[in-house]
């Protein structure tokens, strides 16, 4: 089959690789009809996530048709499914608590050693991400082997377009969980750093959950325009003092909740960020956390801090004093997709959530490297790239 494979920093290629097949009883094989490039794929593209091997198949946002099933799969051949990017067994202690991204049983044991050392515990398997999360071949391919297919994939009724439901695989539940982690109350101001796909879904979710106002922070005019269209107020940090503006826009209180939808590769010409970026370049395993530091400074006393942005290593100059002295609550984590996916499918069916507005480009799988290049380097115009395996290549 054809698949997008990683070969090093800024080097991804569409190669011919082996087809997947059923290994375990609960597996299914999916023929991919739509798959997207995620902002977190750019962390892999930029080579800042450890545990990658040349030839790894990327992609963790995908959907398609079931073409083969193991004896314990509950799917049927021909089912149209969206597959959560988190691989979860459904029966361990963590899955029982709906903490699906903490699943004990989906990350192959040999891959757990590194995360046990790095984070103290291993985390669940993820599709198409680093070997720290299992090294599972991902969805930017013609076919994918999906373990625990009786737990993760959700069957999509015919008549719903791929583009309307594809993002149930990751970014919609991720944005939704980011807002849910804010415990939004009446009158709340929610500030969101980053108007990429997750930030945009967090904005939409926070408004659906009843936030009084959502203030979005970015520097790309087109992304800020998308946020404004959703109903957010916007701050362009290249023009405005963010902390001062947030105080003034929230009656001198500060935002009740803040969302860092930026993660480890923060942009911005701030001294802390320049240092972080240098360390990242020389391979210190350092995260660049300017957005998070600013969010912690901005949030009101006793406020809520939600971090859907991806971090993988260590962050210094972390304003722990602000966290403690202001009595903040922090909630974060890879998304527990399976917890939210059914409810969100219904909200899409009911027309409550718009899931297609951010798609800027649709490309055949063969053109995926061009998609990565532009999603990384032309962020203003390339807001979301959907790949369509099986459509004509170049």
């Amino acid at each position, binding site marked *: 089959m054809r698949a997008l494979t990683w070969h090093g920093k800024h080097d991804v290629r569409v190669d011919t690789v082996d087809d997947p*097949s059923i*290994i375990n009883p609960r597996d299914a094989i999916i023929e991919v009809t739509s798959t997207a490039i995620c902002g977190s794929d750019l962390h892999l593209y930029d080579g800042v996530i450890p545990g990658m091997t040349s030839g790894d198949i990327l992609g963790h946002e995908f959907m398609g048709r079931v073409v083969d099933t193991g004896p*314990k799969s509950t799917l049927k051949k021909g089912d149209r499914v969206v597959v959560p990017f988190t691989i979860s*067994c459904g029966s361990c202690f963590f899955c029982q608590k709906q903490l699906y991204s903490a699943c004990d049983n989906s990350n192959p044991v040999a891959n757990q050693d590194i995360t046990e050392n790095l984070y103290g515990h291993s985390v669940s398997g993820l599709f198409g991400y680093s070997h720290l999360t299992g090294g599972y071949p991902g969805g930017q391919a013609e076919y994918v082997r999906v373990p625990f297919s009786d737990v993760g994939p959700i069957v999509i009724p015919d008549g719903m377009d791929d583009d309307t439901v594809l993002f149930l695989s990751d970014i919609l539940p991720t944005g939704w969980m980011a807002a849910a982690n804010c415990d939004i109350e009446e009158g709340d101001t929610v500030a969101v750093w980053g108007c990429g796909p997750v930030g945009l879904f967090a904005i939409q979710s926070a408004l659906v959950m009843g936030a009084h106002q959502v203030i979005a922070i970015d520097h790309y005019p087109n992304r800020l325009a998308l946020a404004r269209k959703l109903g957010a107020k916007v701050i362009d940090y290249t023009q405005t003092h963010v902390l001062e503006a947030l105080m003034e826009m929230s009656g001198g209180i500060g935002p009740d909740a803040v969302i860092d939808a930026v993660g480890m590769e923060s942009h911005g010409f701030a001294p802390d960020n320049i240092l972080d970026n240098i360390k990242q370049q020389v391979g210190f395993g350092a995260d660049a956390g300017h957005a998070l530091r600013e969010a912690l400074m901005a949030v009101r006393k006793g406020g809520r801090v939600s971090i859907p942005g991806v971090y993988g290593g260590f962050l210094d100059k972390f304003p722990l004093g602000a966290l403690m002295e202001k009595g903040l609550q922090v909630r974060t984590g890879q998304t527990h997709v399976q917890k939210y996916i059914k409810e969100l499918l219904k909200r899409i069916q009911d027309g409550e959530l718009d899931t297609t507005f951010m798609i800027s480009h649709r490309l055949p799988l063969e053109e995926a490297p061009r998609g990565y290049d532009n999603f990384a380097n032309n962020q203003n115009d390339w807001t979301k790239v959907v790949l369509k395996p099986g459509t004509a290549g170049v």
Partner: protein
Amino acid sequence: MDHLEDLRHSPYGRGDDNANVWLALGVGALLGAAGLAWYTQQSRRERARRPGDSAPGRTARQSRFGRYAVTGRTVTIAKPKDELYAFWRDFSNLPKFMENVLSVTTAGDVTRWEIAGPAGRSVHVETRVIEDRAGEQIAWRATESSQIDTEGKVMFRDAPGGRGTEVEAIVAYRPPAGELGRWIAKLFQREPAIQGRRELKRLKMLMETGEIATSELHKSAA
């Protein structure tokens, strides 16, 4: 203090100056070694004066007990202890989750284990069950003719809050060829602490999900 002057000005001094430098370094090294020995002894005495804590002995900073290395690991499995005990007690089940156990055969009260060792060699271990409490504990010890001197036990306890069963396995063994053998084995990732940790996780996967996670693309590679 002539040699110090020489050190400052002439790193490539005359022969006898070099001898002085070596002498100074030697004395320094001796003092360092004496200091380290003193410190080690002091901290050992300091530890001996402290009351013990509640942690299992094998988590002590000291990992050797006499000539034996001791390793162990606890895992919580969301299944009743009787089921887990029964699965383990049928030793023919063990190769299903113990990757390095190539085969298990039982004749009378002696069990023969063929275990993959470093560098593609396999090691034969013979054990006898020395204690067997249904649903609670199985303990074994190597026989006289075993290639490796080892003993161990696995315990099954109800986990709190309906979480299932805490399975705790402890193995004591004399590493072949002593400490060196242990380091070499570690290099090959066959060292019992790593094996034990991974095997208990595989047991958990198998019991909780009916399968063992793999990220391989297809069966032939698995």
